[in-house]
């Protein structure tokens, strides 16, 4: 039964529990606040989106290129979807960031995962925004009457 026993333990802290340097500024607070504010707005945006896409008219069966073109003809829906895209992506990204912080213990793993997350987020937001702004009802394959 020879086991090595660590040195006297008084006030010894397992390195795992040593806190890193203090974070500066109020980023975490703002992120927290943003989660709640964006959450409230997202409820309206997402419920409106789901309702108009899936509940009224023919619901899911009615969705197609024409449906999208019809919607984005109105600046209101353009703005609606743009806001939803941004808020949901930022909200979701921040959420996933917290989750990574929680469960990825190694610093390097954390950095990698968050790197991938941010790249994906930027890509999706930029892509989505471009799609909404540069939407062209007469893209190849369009069978809309105005083309």
């Amino acid at each position, binding site marked *: 039964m020879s086991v090595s026993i660590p040195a006297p333990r008084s006030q010894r802290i397992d390195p795992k529990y040593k806190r890193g340097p203090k974070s500066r500024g109020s980023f975490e607070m703002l992120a927290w606040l943003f989660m709640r504010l964006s*959450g409230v707005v997202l409820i309206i945006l*997402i419920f409106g989106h789901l309702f108009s896409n899936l509940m009224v008219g023919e619901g*899911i069966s009615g969705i197609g290129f024409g449906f999208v073109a019809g919607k984005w003809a109105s600046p209101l829906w353009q703005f609606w979807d743009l806001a939803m895209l941004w808020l949901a992506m930022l909200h979701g*990204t921040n959420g*996933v960031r917290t*989750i990574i912080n929680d469960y990825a213990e190694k610093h390097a793993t954390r950095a990698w995962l968050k790197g991938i997350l941010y790249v994906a987020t930027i890509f*999706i937001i930029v*892509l989505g925004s471009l*799609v909404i702004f540069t939407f062209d009802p007469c893209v190849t*394959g369009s069978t809309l009457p105005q083309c």
Partner: protein
Amino acid sequence: MSKTSSGTLYRGHEGMWSWVGHRVTGVVIFLYLLVHVLDTAMVRVDAGAYDAIISTYQTPWMALGETGLVAAILFHAFNGLRLILVDFWKQGTKYQRQMLWGVLILWVIVFAGFAIRHLSIAFGSH
């Protein structure tokens, strides 16, 4: 060393399990959102391709998935409101449990309404 103490499950109460639900639904929605933006982006490439993708959404299997997703969104949304009330309403921490029951009731009602309409459309049209 601490593995031995954390290996087993903590039973927790409603609060903990609702948080687990909130977290899981949050991630699910996020992953879906990534895909959803990509597929919607097809409208910028080719209208036919977009329609083709959307038509897969219209199959019964995808409709079921879609229903699940909405279930997740509804829970996440209502529970999100509960969390906001817990944070900002003075009595929020006191009534968190009652609010959770409220969330679940609301969730069942709204989800039932949605599911009936959505599934009848999805299955009806095929």
